[in-house]
């Protein structure tokens, strides 16, 4: 059987979800037998090629992240969201209760340790979106593994179900938002 091709991306988030993935113990050996990782922070491959499964960690808060998730969606058959940021917005969405200009001013000018700060305007720095969005507010998402970070148990469940050809819905007893 051909290996299932997987791409994972790490958007606006802390990488905790990928850490949780690496925390699935010996199951990772089974996964590596069945799965081939393409673009991913784990492989350090930076370009997209078509895959079976796309996995997104993190919310979408700037133009670059928006571009990445759109490209991922375009290149995968099934898109799975990992973690509270991708599923609900998570900690990154805390900025949504302020307006964007205030957030930028606070971060680049008003913080006590900043001297002569400037809000970056270089084209190399992706512009912030008006709000931080969970993945499903930008593209269609097929399944979710929430948690901050998700329990390795839940990550394992999500992968096992996908590999068995089913769309996973994390059972209540292992679902966690914290």
């Amino acid at each position, binding site marked *: 059987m051909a290996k299932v091709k997987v791409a994972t991306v790490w958007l606006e988030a802390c990488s905790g979800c990928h850490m949780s993935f690496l925390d699935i113990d010996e199951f990772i050996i089974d996964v590596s037998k069945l799965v081939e990782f393409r673009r991913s922070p784990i492989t350090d491959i930076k370009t997209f090629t078509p895959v079976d499964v796309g996995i997104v960690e993190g919310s979408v808060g700037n133009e670059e992240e928006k571009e990445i998730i759109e490209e991922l969606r375009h290149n995968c058959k099934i898109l799975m*969201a990992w973690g*509270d940021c991708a*599923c*609900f*917005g*998570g*900690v990154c*969405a*805390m900025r*949504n*209760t*302020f307006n964007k200009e205030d957030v930028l001013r606070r971060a680049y000018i008003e913080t006590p340790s900043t001297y002569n700060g400037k809000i970056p305007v270089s084209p190399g720095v992706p512009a912030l979106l008006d*709000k931080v969005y*969970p993945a*499903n*507010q930008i593209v269609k*998402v097929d*399944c*979710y*593994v*929430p948690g*901050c970070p998700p329990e390795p148990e839940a990550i394992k469940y999500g992968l096992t179900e996908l590999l068995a050809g089913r769309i996973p*819905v*994390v*059972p*209540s007893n292992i*679902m*966690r*938002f*914290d």
Partner: protein
Amino acid sequence: MSEITLNINGKQCKGKQGDSVLDVCVANSIDLPTLCHYKGLTDVGACRMCLVEIEKERNFVPACTHPASDGQVVKTSSEKLEKYRRLILELMFTERNHLCAYCVDSGDCELQSLAYKYQMDNARYQYAWPTQVTDSSNPFIVMDHNRCILCGRCIRTCDEITGAHALDFGKRGWKTNVCADINQPLGESSCISCGGCFQACPTGAIFSKASAYRGKPVECTTVESTCAICGVGCDIKALVKNNRLVRIDSPDMTKPRGLLCEMGRFEPLYDSAERVTTPLNRNSKGQLASCSYEEAFEIIAKKFGASDSVAGLASGKASSEALKALADLMDKLGSKLVDTLDGDDCRTVSQGIARFDSKAGLDMEAKLEDILTADCIVVIGAHPTKSHPVIGSYIMRAASKNKAQLIVLDPLRNPFTFRASVWLKPPEGKKELTVKALGKAILDHGLPKAAGDKSKFSADFKEVDVKKAGKDLGIDVHDITRAGQLLAESKNSIIIYGSGILEYKDADLVATILNLAALTSEKPSVISLKRYGNSRGAWQLGLGNPRGPVASDLAKGKAKGLYLLLADDLTESQALTDSIKGVEFTVVQASYLSPATAKADIVLPSLLWTESKGSYTTLDGINKKTSPLVKAPADIKTDADTLKEVARHLKK
């Protein structure tokens, strides 16, 4: 009440006329998700989680507000219902800012557990991300509107259980928010910090500062006990983690003594006073230094053994076991000088009762729960909202729920004066005349025939001329007449009096109040607010009465030795420290270092009520017990054991 039978999910379920569909489900162990429902509160159908299908009803109906009726066919679960429930949860999550991973309530949140139950792994709606404030102006409680689902449980608890009605919904529609008073910061509102709201809140929208992030309920052990701070004796349920108090809850806020107040809920969590952890002995340099129990006992035995007059003085905060052991010690020393710090209060009440009628007077001491059913409440010289807050709540509840008439007799404004039907402000030293004028006003209005012959009780009042009294007192005669009328027309009135009466040490005044009660009610009910958690226990043990008063003897230098049992009382007065001055040898048994321990020759440590097993008698005579919630910071004997050891070491 007649029985009804419903068909719920194909099962025959019994209920009572007047039940809601939800009541019947609960009684028959049928699981139905709820959020705005809370045991003991009026149901409002706000959250729509308990929607059910009822045959012949056009729409889904909320089970909590829908009356159950005989023969109803109910379905609590279907694909459509479950779909709607999940949809409601998603709407709640997107309406405010829920960040479980950073929320104090995560792991203890009803909204979150329902989201788990419904496998809500995402929300399909546009998030509102509203800008909400977090109000931390109250010293104990934070209100974080980011997490609020507008279920109204806090509002109904504050109104129906606490009786404060400090909270309500403010604004309309999309902008609706829970607000205190007329949208004031909670800390500046009429909130009395009872904590009922955060116990009832299903989410992290209201929480206790001291409990936040101290531990989740699953990580805690639970201990049930009694609050020994005041004479109400509320039931408590403490959550403890690593020998630290995480939270003090009520085991059931709808039960009698199930309510808590600021003191019971928070005092033990904020305890920071310096403790006495070992016996202390005054050394040759005149400083207190740590010593062993044995050394301390030997010194006490030697000093007390050689003294012919040792007095014992106890705080009413000590347990009955400790008070009894102190009385025994004094007996062994052959001393009649035993008293409590509030002995004067206790004697005033006792003598007042004796002057009125020893037997009937005692019978008139009512149970606190009687306040809830009273139709007229007279509060004389008492500020229960401060001294016994739960009694304050009972009064406010009776006034709002039962429409009980409230008559306040007090020169100063208190939380009841603005709710009172009549507020009489007696000038200093004229309380007795005011009470008498009130009695006369009752007689003038005339009592119903059913009241029977009350001539026995009218003697005190007959001679008073209400008009003239009004003039003397500077009180509008109409107010007196109106109060008299309310009392004359009431069926079960209750009179509550406290320190504002007892401070005069005037037994006649107490007797007059009892007369007033006897005049107005068939089952006269009086509550005297005793100062300490176990004042009544001390009273029943005969500590302050017939013995005492001791303080004056101390001041006169009659006692050469003093055993002062303070236990965890930190409120001892200047008068007390003054009276120690003249004593040659003083032992203070206390939990905390204080001006009194600073003057002592020997200090012995006391456990706190939260650290020990003890018996306490509530101010209305119910025996309650405490259990240790946490371990003491050192190896400390119980007060009773310490006292018994002292007695054992005496040579006689």
